[in-house]
Each structure stands twice: as C-alpha cells, then as structure tokens.
C-alpha cells in the first residue's frame, strides 16, 4: 500500500502544503482571500506581515487583501453558503490582520474603514442580532465598540465622547424599548451632536418608517445589509466633508 503524503480536506482531495512567503504578491493576495474565507487567523496575520515587508502600504493591504477577502465572505453569507460560525471565524481572522494594520494606519493618518459604537437600548436585553451586526461590521474592517445591552442616553453619550466613532448603532427588539431610540436621538440633537454621527438602527420589530420617525439615518433589516450600508454611508459622509 502506498502512503499518502499531505493532508486531506473534507472532499478527500489532497491538499498541498504551501509556503506563504514564497508566493508572488498576486497569488498571496488570493491565498489570503481563501485564508479569510476559511477563518485561518494565523495565516492572515502572516500574509499581512509579508505584504507589509514587501513594501505594501497598510491601506493597500487593508483594501486589497483583507476587505477584498471579506467582501467575498459577505456575499457568500448573504447567499446562504457560509454559516454564522464560519463568518465569525472569518471576522476573527480579519481582526487579526487589522490588529497589525491599525497602528500603521493611525501613524499615517489614514482612516480605517470606519468606527462604530453599538448597543441595545435601555430595557432591552435582546442581543443576538446586535452581536451578529457587530461581527459583520468587524468583518468589513470596522472597529466596533460593543457597549452591550440596556444602554441609557448617558451610556451612549459617554461612549460617543470616548470613542468618537463614525456611527452610532442602536438595536431594539421590543416595541416597549424601541421608542427609546428617539430619546437618544433627541439627546444628540440637544447636545448639538446629531450631525457628527451616522445613526443606524435595527431589530426585528422596526421598519423603515419607524427609523424615519425617530430621526435615524438608516434602518437595516439584517447584519449583511448593516455592513454594506455602513460602508456606503461612511464613504458618503467623508466625501461630503472632504
């Protein structure tokens, strides 16, 4: 009997070992897309480091290797091919790469994709949806500050003050708590802060009309839409301010 060399994947196909540092740039980027897809954090970190060593700017690594890869993940999540636990791993791998890029981006003054503070409103402990939104946003390259459940106006204001994000995200699943979103938006207006932040809201009992009524900038029906909307709105805002 012949010994099989190399590993076997789910399909029983033989997998060849590769050495990332030996790949040319274009192949390495494609390989990193696959590594993100499979949630291989260490490999993504290694790939990120290699590209930086080869003289790529942090911005270029971010957009071509990481965001490019996560876009594919997002598409396959939307289409039901990737499952939530797999996207979670992919987002984690992305975070691994980001942890290397972030200080470099900060040094050059380049902006990250965006920053978001997210939490459920006062009286509401439903957080599964919020967690999924956070995961998708991280996957899209956002820095996400999750302030958890049951947040009062003061909690939100304090987090905005501290983290200066692009986006304030609020989630609510109860008809008894979703009106509180308006209380928060009103407080932003009162403090002259309303225009400083993009306000995004979501949760199963909400709809577009309700989001308009509370004065939010966007309502998103699910996590995938939240991340695409966030990317678009941050880009638009930066363009408008530029």
């Amino acid at each position: 009997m012949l010994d099989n060399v190399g590993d076997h994947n789910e399909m029983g196909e033989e997998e060849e070992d590769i050495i990332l540092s030996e790949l040319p740039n274009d192949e390495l980027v494609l390989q990193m897309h696959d590594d993100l897809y499979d949630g291989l954090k260490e490999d993504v970190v290694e790939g990120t480091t290699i590209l930086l060593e080869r003289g790529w700017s942090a911005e270029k690594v971010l957009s071509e290797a990481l965001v490019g890869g996560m876009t594919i993940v997002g598409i396959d999540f939307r289409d039901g091919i990737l499952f939530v636990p797999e996207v979670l791993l992919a987002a984690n791998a992305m975070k691994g790469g980001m942890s290397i890029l972030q200080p470099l981006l900060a040094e050059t003054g380049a902006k990250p994709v965006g920053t978001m503070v997210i939490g459920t409103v006062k009286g509401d402990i439903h957080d599964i949806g919020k967690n999924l939104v956070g995961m998708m946003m991280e996957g899209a390259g956002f820095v996400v500050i999750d302030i958890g459940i049951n947040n009062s106006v003061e909690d939100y204001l304090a987090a905005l003050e501290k983290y200066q994000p692009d986006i304030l995200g609020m989630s609510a699943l109860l008809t008894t708590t979703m009106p509180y979103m308006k209380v928060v938006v009103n407080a932003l207006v009162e403090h002259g802060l309303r225009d400083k932040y993009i306000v995004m809201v979501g949760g199963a009992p909400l709809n577009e009309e309700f989001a308009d009524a509370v004065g939010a900038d966007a309502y998103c029906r699910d996590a995938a839409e939240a991340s695409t909307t966030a990317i678009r709105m941050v880009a638009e805002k930066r363009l408008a301010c530029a």
Partner: protein
Amino acid sequence: MSERSGRRKSRGRDAKHADRKRNQMEVAAFIDRKIPYFDYLSTESLELIEHNADTVLEEIGIDFRDDPEALSLLKDAGADVEGERVRFPRGMCRSIIQASAPKEFTQFARNTERNVIIGGDRTVLVPSYGSPFVRDLDGGRRYATINDFENFVKLAYMAPGLHHSGGTICEPVDLPVNKRHFDMIYSHIKYSDKPFMGSVTHPDRAQDTVDMAKLVFGDEFVENNCVCISLINANSPMTFDATMLGAAKVYARHNQATMISPFILAGAMSPVTVAGTATQILAEALAGMAFVQIVKPGAPVVFGTFASAISMQSGAPTFGTPEPSMVMYAVGALARRLGVPFRSGGGLTASKVPDAQAAYESANTLQAAAMSGVNFMLHTAGWLEGGLSMSYEKFIMDCDQANMLAVLLKGADMSENGQAMDALREIGPGSHFLGSAHTQANFKTAFYRSTVADNNSFEQWQADGELDCAQRANAQWKQMLNDYVAPELDPAIDEALLEFISKRKGSFPDKEY
C-alpha cells in the same frame, strides 16, 4: 285535528341546520389527558441530564443580575453567592422545589366554570403571546393596536378549543409603553371570562395586575388563590435579569403563578445538541423555580421552556424542525420527574403568511407538544413569523388544530360502544356501515369535523369560489367578531376597574419606554 299518539314531532330542516352549524366540540374548561406520555429518552438519559444540570448549578452557576435582594435571599437559603454569580450545592434547588411547590394548582377565572387546573394530566390551550405586528388578508401586516388586542380577546373567548385568554396577545403599540398594561388586563377581564396572564415588563406593572385582579376577585381571595399566571423568561444562557426577577417576586408574594421559562434559540443561547440544551434548560429552570419558592414557599410555579433552533445561515429562529421537538420531549419528562407543571409548545412557525409552511410547522410543534405532556400551552393560536406577527386567519386555523388535540388526548373509546362489536356483527362481510344502527347512533360525533378544511369535490370547491384555507378562515373570524356577545360583568366591578385605571394613569406621565 287528528291526534296520532306515540310519534315524536319531527324537528325538521331548520333544527338540523342550526345543529350542524353549531360547533360540535364539547366545550370543556381544559383537557383531561387519557393517554400515556411519549417517552423519547430513556430513564438513564434523563438521569444523566439531571446529573449534568446539577453540575452546571454547582460548578458554573447562574447570574442573578441587578437584584441585590435576590442575591441575599439565595445566600440565606444556602447558595454560594459570588458577585452576581450564584452556585447551588448539588440537589439544593430540587429539594427546595419539591418541599413546597404544588404539583398542580387551579387558576381561577371570573366565571368559575372556566377555572383551569394546571399540572398533572391536564392540558390548557392558550393563545399566542407578544407579537408587535398583526396581519390579516385584508389589511396586511401592521403594528398592533388595542383594537386588535380586544378582537383577539373576543376571538379567544369564543373559541371552544382555547381554555385561556392569554396575556399580551399582541402589543397595543398605539398606547404609551408604561400604561398599556392597564388596557390589556382590562380587556381580558371585560371581554372574556376565561383566566388570563399578568404583565411582567416592570414590577409596578405586575403589582397593577394584582391590584386589578383584587377588584374582581376580592383581596383575600387573591392572596390565597391563583387568579393570574405570568411569563418569567430566563435570559439564557444562565442569567436572570432584574425586570423578570422583580415581576416574579411581586407575583410570588401575592401567591400568583409564574412560569419560569428558559426561552432558548439553540445554537446561540445554548449548545447545539439536544442533551446540552435540555441540561441548560433544566439548570436555569431549577434555579428560577427554587428562587420563587424561597421568596414564597408554596407559590405556584411552572417549569417553562420554549425551544427553537437558529438558522446557522442567518441566526434567525426556526420552527417545526425535529430538534426542538426532541428538547420538548426531554424537558416534559424532566418536569414530571421533578413534580411541577410544564409549559411549552404552541403553533410555532417562521412563515410570514398563513401558508403551507405555517400549517406544517405549526402542526409539527402542536402535535409534539401534546405528546410530550405540556400542561400549559402558550402560543397555541395565531403565531406567525417567529412571534413577530399575530395573524387573524392563522388564529382560526390553529383553533381547528387545538380542537383536534383535545380529541387526540382523550384517547380511544374502549367502552362497549367503542368496541363496536354490534356493528361488526350486524354488517358482516361485503356490505357497508353507513346504515348500521351503531353508525346511526354515533356518526355525529364519531369523527372530528374541521372548521376550515375543505373536503368537497373539485367542482363544489370551484362553485364555492375556489377559496383557500386562509380565505375561509378570513370569513370565519369576521363572522365571529360579528356574533360576539360580551360575557356579563358586574357593573360595580367594571366601574371600580375603570376608576382604578383612570386614577393610576393620571398619577404619572405617559412614557415611551
């Protein structure tokens, strides 16, 4: 006029028309089960789950959040309290519960013929709960209003297969958040005489529920008897929050029933396996029910569970799939071993409209709930869209299913008449039974007659307008609301309730949270 003696006057066409239109359902206050439980897991498996649940309680513990009083009560009772984490020595919760929690209890209704016994071999069927939206064929999906709420109370009152008026049948979104409970409780009392559920979204609202019940039943009666039952959800995994604990304390102290319900979307809120989920549910329920017994020994508690699995593709809850049914079978058996009533089940579905998906997912969960021995079946009728929407048509379709569960649980008739040996002898080989004396005597009630299914010929169905099930149900609920006659309510009680409500509503400002 010639007098013929010895012949009964025939009742004729009109009488028969009236007879056939009347629902042939026996109206009973609740279902008395006559069939065995379906043992899905072996005794060894159940013992293993019990052992593991005790390990969870002892080793990992349960968080009781933002409620220092709860922590000190638990500590005094012998639990190990570290911050908000509470660990229970092996067997502690079980022995506290078994020492004082009733195995079964009566929930009184303002019409005593509607009293229900919760626990033992009984099943009480209850409308759906908690939907922010309603939907019907004419108006589509929209936020619910108090008018919808009243409509559903009336429909549940008229439905012979539902034994209970339920609680937050749908959320009256048109009323201020901090005052809508008054109108909901009032509707249950005014438009129905079946038993009802209380408000849990704030301890003050629980207190208002108790105070309103006292105006109906009298102070002393309420302190000594269960007149309302309320839904206390665990915030799984392994957490109880102050809102729910606060409401639970109010109800327990007034001797009112609570259903401690781990409400699980498996995969997100519990492990993905049946045994793992059942273990966590048991641990959480044991902790919650023991807490209620510590607050007020003897206060009625129900072991609740609501199990669903999430879609691994989106995180959304799914219904009518096999795994949550397995969990329900397991937890039903665990509740019986513990010796407390069991709440679960319902006509659950993720479908957005009352279509084929809605029907089969609901049938799957309703049947499994019946077989698993659910005593209090919340969400029996109306549920759509994972509980986000309460449907008028689906309500009618589910009521049909509810009627059928009553027949199923009654078991087969093994009396002499049930054995039908006379019929077999009379007819013998080769003939048919339609004319036999036995058939003539039994045909009216022998088979359940669906209220919404169509079994006619294709041509007849065509002539009747080619209606599908939802369309037939649409006509039915409208007819029911049209025919509705309110049960009598003592005007003095009505006045007292209205006065109480207006006084309380006037004593604090409207708030939208």
